[in-house]
């Protein structure tokens, strides 16, 4: 069941699609860079985990999803939320701890939520979101909808029991869930090969008799290709898929991480795989867009992210006297 992906057909995306992928990846990158600035300026606190380098994964998956599909993530969740169309304003305001944030200032970077966008949350415990996403898929099947549940998590999470327990149940009941492993080769300071006795994560699908794919997570088109296959399978009610995306984070684990253990040569190697320039080359070579057009998009995004910051800055904090609000379902 560990399968080869179909070879790419000549032109995989049209102009509109290509530009959408570009927009989503650049939005993610720009947003995260801005977060770093804001963190160092003391505008946001706690652990902030940035997504730089992994954009092709979030974009490759979520641009193919419907609004009523579910996405859940980890503590590295900003960009997964953005790709699911949670507005940058709402995410930035949350990071600023403002009441206009997507979790009303209560959640913070590791607890982003948006019911409106079926974004089921950032989960701060490793592997914690895997059973939750499986439950959302169960719920879709139970209610007889054809919604799909996509869950993003890292290589480190695949050594945790919840990963195996969930894949088994998803396989048993043919749940419409896609487990997307963002294998960025590291769990903070723990190299993947030191943590996993079998480093090819997609092969673990064999233990549950579900399809497992490994794709270049630095190539948004490759991710998209696999995503299409997995989403269609889930949509048809045929069951779960394990999708391993080989990728890399361009920054430290979190903005608090000195990042001293990763070999500079390794970082250099992966920087060259940056998914954004790769897509640019594709768009230009295939005449789907011009440099000028892309520049316009960049500026538009830059302005949108700056607007998000202004919005966050200007938004009020949640009133402290509402500190007990939302503890129980009774309080609206």
């Amino acid at each position: 069941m560990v399968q080869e992906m179909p070879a790419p057909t000549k032109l995989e995306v049209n102009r509109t699609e290509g530009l959408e992928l570009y927009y989503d990846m650049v939005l993610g990158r720009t947003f995260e860079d801005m977060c770093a600035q804001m963190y160092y300026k003391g505008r946001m606190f706690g652990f902030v985990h940035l997504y730089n380098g992994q954009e092709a994964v979030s974009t490759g998956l979520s641009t193919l999803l419907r609004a009523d599909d579910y996405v859940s993530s980890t503590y590295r969740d900003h960009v997964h939320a953005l790709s699911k169309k949670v507005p940058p304003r709402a995410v930035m305001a949350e990071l600023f701890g403002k009441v206009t944030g997507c979790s009303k200032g209560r959640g913070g970077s590791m607890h982003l939520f948006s019911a409106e966008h079926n974004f089921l949350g950032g989960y701060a415990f490793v592997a914690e979101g895997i059973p939750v996403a499986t439950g959302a898929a169960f719920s879709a099947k139970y209610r007889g909808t054809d919604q799909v549940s996509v869950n993003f998590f890292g290589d480190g999470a695949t050594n945790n029991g919840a990963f195996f327990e969930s894949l088994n149940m998803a396989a048993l009941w043919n749940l419409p869930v896609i487990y997307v492993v963002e294998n960025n080769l590291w769990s903070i300071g723990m190299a993947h090969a030191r943590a996993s006795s079998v480093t090819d994560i997609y092969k673990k699908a064999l233990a549950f008799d579900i399809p497992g794919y490994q794709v270049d997570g630095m190539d948004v088109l490759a991710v998209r290709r696999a995503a299409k296959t997995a989403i269609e399978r889930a949509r048809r009610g045929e069951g779960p898929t394990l999708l391993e995306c080989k990728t890399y984070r361009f920054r430290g684990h979190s903005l608090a991480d000195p990042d001293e253990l990763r070999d500079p040569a390794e970082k250099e190697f992966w920087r060259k795989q940056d998914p954004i320039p790769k897509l640019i080359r594709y768009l230009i070579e295939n005449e789907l867009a011009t440099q000028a057009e892309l520049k316009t998009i960049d500026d538009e995004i830059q302005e949108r992210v700056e607007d998000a910051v202004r919005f966050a800055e200007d938004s009020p904090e949640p009133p402290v006297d509402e500190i007990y609000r939302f503890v129980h379902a009774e309080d609206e």
Partner: protein
Amino acid sequence: MAVKFYFEALRDAIYEEMVRDPMVMVMGEDVGHYGGSYKATKDLFKEFGELRVLDTPIAENSFAGMAVGAAMTGLRPIIEGMNMGFLLLAFSQIANNGGMLRYTSGGQFTVPMVVRGPGGVGKQLGAEHSQRLEAYFYGVPGLKIVAPATPTDAKGLLKAAIRDDNTVLFFEHVLLYNLKDEIPDNEDVVIPLGKANKLHEGDDITILTYSRQVHHCLQALKTLKAEGYQPDLIDLRTLKPLDMEMIGESVRKTHRVLIVEEDYKTGGIGGEIVALIDEYFFDELDAPVMRLASKDIPTPYNGKMEAATIPQPADIIQAVKSLVD
């Protein structure tokens, strides 16, 4: 009225709620074909199908997490811990998400899930099968905790728990499943969470208890009444939130309080109750609130030692006398 066993009352509650609301479902180990380790879901799968009465693998952490995800997206799952102790494995999902997710999501999501199953000390089941998780989970914000002592309460409180939009931990007692009781039938018995139950009116001492110890207290009551004592006996029923109204009213009347609990004395719920009574009714107290609880030991297998671990009617009688006389 119909005579029902505690386990039947639970089953009736689940059955009626599943009929009433198609989003109510059950998941857990052996809840389907086997009918639940104490028969609380017997044959329900035949009527509602295997998806609504879902037999899960032995994976407490993940099926609890699945229930969270299902509850966030419209279902009202009831998960059964074959023994509540096993849910130690699901502590993070229950605490982080059952208890806290509504808050961290700024009120966007609710997790209407019921976590039920047998707790308490049984008949020589050994330490791991005789834990009292109501105390371990007590501090987790956002959770409600219930522990019914009778078939009627089991039914009425479980229906209320299923309809509640919060995550509710529902502690049945392993030695109460075969308890019989008259229950009003063809009628919708729903007992609101957070309301205690006065089992005997008296004015010389307040006895606060829950679950199986209610029956030890009722046994002690016979002797005590025969000897002229008039305890105000209260079955807390809901452990969190506590019914401070009924507790206060009683304390103002009796000025003496005895707490009888099966959980460990150290770190038990009794300590919290003592602190609350001091905080609100200290001047009403003629004596320190007394806790009669289980000894601070893993439950021994040996029968005599096990019996000596938990409060017995004789201990209750003695405690009441020491406080009243």
